[in-house]
């Protein structure tokens, strides 16, 4: 009896310890690429919730000043006169525009007003649809 209790308790402890040490997702390559830049505020949000069942990871780059923003716009081929810009970018190089083919992509949204670029990582169709639904819902609520 004691042996059984001992084995059960050790197993339970091991299981719980394993759960407790689940660390948060690692920093993405994009975050690491820009985190050292002094002229940018850089953030990576893992698990930004789009609906009850779908989350995406988001990386945001926010320029500290106009000069930093101009540098960013150059790096991502953004023309500021166009206002807010949105495109699908390649995972390894979000500056390059691409199309949705079912493979992982970045939804890139650039806001000159906020001097911020957001990169929403889309790995599957559910995320792609949820992102569109999220934006459509917002648009619907505006009107």
């Amino acid at each position, binding site marked *: 009896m004691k042996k059984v209790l001992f084995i059960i*308790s050790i197993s339970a402890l091991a299981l719980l310890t394993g759960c407790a040490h689940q660390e948060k997702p690692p920093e993405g390559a994009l975050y690491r690429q820009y985190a050292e830049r002094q002229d940018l505020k850089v953030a990576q949000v893992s698990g930004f919730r789009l609906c009850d069942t779908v989350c995406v990871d988001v990386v945001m780059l926010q320029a500290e000043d106009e000069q930093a923003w101009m540098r960013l716009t150059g790096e991502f081929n953004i023309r500021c006169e166009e206002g807010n810009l949105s495109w699908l970018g390649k995972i390894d190089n979000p500056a390059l525009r691409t199309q949705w083919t079912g493979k992982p992509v970045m939804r890139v949204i650039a806001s000159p007003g906020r001097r911020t670029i957001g990169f929403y990582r889309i790995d599957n169709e559910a995320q792609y649809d949820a992102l569109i639904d999220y934006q459509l819902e917002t648009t619907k609520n505006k009107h």
Partner: protein
Amino acid sequence: MMTEQEFDILWQRAAAEPHAARLLEEYPVWRRNRRRNLGIAAFVVALVVVALPLLPPSQPAAAGDNGTSIYCNRPGITEQYWFEMADALLKEA
């Protein structure tokens, strides 16, 4: 009903004296096993006390219920700020 002290005395004598052992056998099982049960209960309580802090948080330590974790290269900025920024960019796109 035997008091606990009487039970203890009988328990100690049980090994040496057969009639004391017989008395113990007649005693209700749950009373005889009381010490063992208390030991198991204490063990379970101790296990729970040790395990509770190890449990992962049910909610992420993030602003609101949106998101699981945040990295930021500027420690002074709140998580709420970035959640609102991610939300605002989508809404304005």
